[in-house]
């Protein structure tokens, strides 16, 4: 098996993904950890491209690298202690042992089951179109599609309810008195 540029790109993307993840775990400053997370998510997008899944890669960039990392960064910024001086509590050994255990188990299963290399299947040129048709096809993914919309709605209501409502609270208290 000869090395190709693909191998190099795969190595680089894996380095981004794993290195970013390690950076997230080991960094004490939450903002920096968030930045490492962006790197890690970006690496995953690269891996999706190598797997011939460009739409997933675009989604990964758009949603994860774009929106979710912004959300995480902002969440860190609105917390009371942006850069806590004392390190967060850790039980590194225990966590490391657990993680190693899970990795060995899963690694073993995956190595034994997928020992050989499977060539990526040919992706049809209109894969996105097919996905779009499948989303609204009742014989394919219509139920998950609609449930997802309700899920998003519920999550939004919940998040706004949790995060906000301090201002309407006063108004409502006044309104409540009017009716009483």
């Amino acid at each position: 098996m000869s090395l190709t540029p693909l191998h190099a790109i795969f190595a680089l993307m894996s380095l981004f993904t794993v290195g970013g993840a390690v950076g997230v775990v080991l960094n004490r400053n939450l903002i920096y950890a968030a930045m490492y997370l962006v790197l890690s998510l970006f690496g995953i997008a690269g891996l999706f491209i190598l797997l011939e899944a460009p739409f997933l890669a675009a989604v990964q960039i758009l949603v994860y690298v774009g929106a979710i990392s912004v959300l995480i960064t902002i969440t860190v910024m609105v917390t009371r202690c942006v850069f806590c001086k004392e390190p967060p509590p850790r039980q590194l050994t225990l966590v490391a042992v657990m993680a190693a255990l899970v990795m060995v188990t899963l690694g073993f299963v995956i190595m034994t089951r997928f020992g050989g290399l499977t060539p990526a299947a040919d992706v049809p040129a209109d894969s996105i179109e097919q996905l779009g048709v499948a989303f609204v096809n009742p014989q394919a993914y219509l139920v998950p599609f609609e449930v997802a919309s309700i899920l998003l709605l519920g999550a939004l209501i919940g998040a706004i309810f949790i995060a906000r409502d301090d201002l309407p609270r006063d108004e409502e208290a006044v309104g409540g008195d009017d009716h009483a």
Partner: protein
Amino acid sequence: MKDWTFIVILSIVAMATPLAPILIGRLIGPRKGNELKNATYECGVETRGDTWVQFKVQYYIFALVFLVFDVEVVFLYPWAVAYNRLPLFGVLAGVVFVITLAEALIYTIRKDALRWI
């Protein structure tokens, strides 16, 4: 995969372009600092206090609403691409999706969550 080669080349060029002046400047530029030159702003008020401050929760709500509609785009994009191939039922199914998320917008606006306070 061929198409991605160009993107890789583009990103290498894009990274090299700003890096080059910095490196060149560092290599051949004279390094003589003084107090005025090292100031954060050469003209402007010096910042005071810690820059790691707590931000308003409003930012969070905006980011969150953005995220929800961002995810909605992900679902709607393939639907829009496939629009010409869809039967009426498929179009309606997408419309139901949009209506559900329009409710999210109505809720957000009605709860005054988008007003900056």
